[in-house]
């Protein structure tokens, strides 16, 4: 099967052999040979983005919605540096991405050549691993290894920097074999003795909670199924991070809603009061834990994660199980049944009635209005009107992202794509394009803010070119809403530079890109307008004019604990909630 070909042909052949169907990219001098090789084939569709950051986010959206490795191709210098934000985003959210960058020819490296930059140096900190290919002989191995590393263990982005002379050089291509990597062998199976110990702790628990995260999604759909089974077997409540939404269905009996800074009152209070926390594929991020020295103070903690460095990083745990969530959950489900374990039903009933009292606070409630569209109402209506379809949601970053997480409810994994760790404004539109290309049959909606959407607005052109009927649902409050909210909380309502002045007319903007533009500002018209958007066969930019002053609540203010949330009906002036120490935090 080995065959002589040029480096550029090897790249295309390897991508085909790795099952890549869509390659997001932007040509330039240092990748021309690869673009030429792409010209001669039809298996891989190249998707021309309008900015390399868009390529990276589109690859992420593709990966997250399909479970496959996302792939992008950019040129040297500015092509590579423009991709850096997307690579960092993929690293923070553990998304499998392979990024191929062109490089100046090897003899020019280090000479400050035109469009040269130290790509491996720059991306060392924002990739799981990266390569500079110095010899054609190394290229086939590196190409296959990159895919292996991107998708194995805790997934992440991998960069392959290929100098132009290596793209022109001839060598022998080797197809992918079962890679026996020299050093990289993540632990997949969990330690059985520890799993049994975990189950014994679970059987004794009086106030248990599952705290699940993006690791469950990354472990594949089987992990979500197993989580549902384990929750049903044990009867334990389930909460999830922003990244893990959809692993457990929002209509499931044991669902508490999302936890964390803008999570539900019942989820956060249950985390605070629990006596046993079972963290599955979650990493105790600061948005989740709030004040660490007051984090779940009465609890024993079990942590299941494929990355040993996630364990005891922010929070010390009592029992750590290193392994892939799907494998560990499978063992847990099997052993819980075969060892005839059962939960402490009486204590659990008390625990659930406590949870119901918290739930009765209705922490996601908001004041309805028939004059202005409340942003929460807009998300709620979008959810209701898209129910029963295969709907994929992406978001930008800010208030609208949190409202989407609170009010759009997910039943399945891989339906929700949002920039969690890095918090990248401009993520949602390119991610929606990537998700749409991987799921031609789905309705893909980017729930956006008017400020975020402008960060990668040029990708509307990509959506048009590839006939992606993505719907951009902008909650337009004319503010960088989360910034404005924090200025209200921390800086006496001095809204320094957070007003979205000189906004474009989004309807005309959509039309300028050849898409459909819509606007709605009246709550009475909203349902019909959303329906029109859904029914449209084209890409739509929907300018939804919402209440300008709405804050995203409930909220754990910075520096506070889970049981110190600000609720939507708090009479307290939110400008007085955070103390000086909390103001230092982000």
């Amino acid at each position, binding site marked *: 099967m080995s065959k002589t070909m040029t480096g550029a042909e090897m790249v295309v052949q390897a991508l085909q052999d790795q099952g890549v169907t869509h390659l997001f990219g932007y040509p330039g001098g240092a990748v021309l040979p690869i673009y030429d090789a792409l010209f001669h084939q039809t298996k891989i569709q190249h998707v021309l983005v309008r900015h390399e950051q868009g390529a990276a986010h589109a690859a992420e959206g593709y990966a997250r919605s399909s479970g496959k490795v996302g792939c992008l191709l950019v040129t040297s210098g500015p092509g590579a540096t423009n991709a850096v934000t997307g690579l960092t985003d993929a690293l923070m959210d553990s998304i499998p991405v392979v990024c191929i960058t062109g490089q100046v020819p090897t003899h020019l490296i280090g000479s400050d050549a035109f469009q040269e930059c130290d790509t*491996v*140096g720059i991306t*060392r*900190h924002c990739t*799981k*691993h990266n390569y*500079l290919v*110095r010899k054609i002989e190394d290229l086939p191995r590196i190409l296959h290894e990159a895919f292996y*590393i991107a998708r194995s263990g805790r997934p992440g982005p991998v960069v392959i920097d290929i100098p132009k002379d290596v793209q022109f050089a001839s060598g022998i291509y080797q197809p992918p074999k079962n890679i026996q990597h*020299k*050093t*990289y062998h993540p632990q997949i199976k969990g330690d059985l003795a520890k799993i049994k110990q975990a189950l014994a702790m679970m059987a004794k628990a009086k106030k248990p909670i599952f705290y699940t995260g993006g690791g469950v999604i990354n472990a594949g759909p089987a992990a979500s199924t197993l989580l549902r089974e384990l929750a049903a077997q044990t009867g334990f409540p389930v909460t999830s991070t922003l990244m893990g939404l959809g692993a457990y269905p929002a209509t499931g009996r044991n669902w508490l809603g999302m936890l964390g800074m803008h999570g539900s009152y019942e989820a956060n209070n249950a985390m605070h009061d629990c006596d046993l926390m079972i963290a599955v594929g979650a990493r105790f991020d*600061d948005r989740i*834990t709030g*004040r*660490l*020295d007051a984090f779940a103070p009465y609890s024993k903690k079990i942590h299941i994660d494929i*990355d*040993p*460095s996630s*364990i*005891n*990083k*922010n*929070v*010390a745990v009592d029992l750590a199980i290193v392994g892939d969530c799907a494998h560990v959950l499978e063992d847990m489900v099997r052993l819980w049944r075969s060892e005839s374990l059962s939960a402490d039903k009486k204590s659990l009933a008390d625990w659930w009635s406590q949870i119901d009292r918290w739930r009765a606070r209705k922490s996601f409630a908001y004041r309805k209005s028939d004059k202005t569209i409340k942003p929460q109402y807009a998300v709620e209506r979008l959810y209701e009107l898209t129910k029963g379809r295969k709907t994929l949601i992406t978001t930008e970053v800010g208030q609208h992202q949190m409202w989407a997480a609170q009010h759009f409810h997910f039943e399945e994994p891989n339906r929700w794509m949002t920039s969690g760790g890095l918090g990248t404004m401009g993520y949602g539109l390119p991610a929606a394009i990537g998700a749409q290309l991987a799921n031609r049959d789905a309705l893909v909606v980017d729930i956006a803010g008017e400020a975020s959407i402008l960060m990668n607005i040029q990708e509307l052109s990509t959506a048009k070119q590839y006939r992606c009927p993505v719907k951009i649902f902008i909650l337009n409050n004319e503010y960088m809403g989360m910034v404005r909210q924090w200025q209200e909380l921390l800086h006496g309502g001095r809204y320094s530079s957070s007003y979205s002045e000189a906004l474009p007319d989004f309807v005309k903007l959509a039309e300028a890109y050849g898409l459909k533009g819509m606007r709605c500002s009246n709550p009475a018209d909203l349902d019909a307008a959303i329906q029109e958007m859904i029914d449209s066969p084209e890409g739509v930019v929907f300018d939804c004019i919402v209440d300008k002053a709405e804050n995203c609540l409930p909220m754990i203010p910075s*520096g506070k604990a889970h049981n110190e949330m600000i609720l939507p009906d708090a009479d307290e002036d939110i400008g007085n909630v955070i103390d000086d*120490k*909390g103001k*230092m*935090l982000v």
Partner: protein
Amino acid sequence: MNAQTPAALSPYSSSAGKASRTETHTLSVLVDNEPGVLARVVGLFSGRGYNIESLTVAEVAHAQALSRITIVTTGAPETIEQISHQLERIVPIHKVTDLSLLDGFLQRELAMIKVRGKGEARTEALRLGEAFRARVIDATTESFIFELTGAPKKIDDFVELMRPIGLVEVARTGVAAITRGPQGM
């Protein structure tokens, strides 16, 4: 080596509310000897705010292209555990061993110490050099260079003794370390 001061404790910091004990540990790290691997290791320390007290690196198995990096670091025990795990995530790293957690290990460092002086100071320097089993590797009528091998503490002590006599400068290799007994890492 650019030891960073830990950021002020915030409520989000993992050591908030804990009295953190600072320990010194010696880590042995076996890596593929490929371009950039040292930058990955050093970048991890600077990027995550860990300390490096000493770092040495050299190829130890040419045929397999393996290098051994020895790092002396300080931090709370939980920080040092994190450092080991973070190092293990770096793809070209084969193995990380925290020697300080094992039964016993040896560490040695080589130093070259230049001392300037005449008359009594000169003989005093030579006498002390002998007591420390330092070798004279260069001599002029008004200077010596000593070569001294030993644990870091021994070198520190010798340098302190030379200071009043006429210490000019010191070059140290940093620490190399290995476990006692028949087992490899």
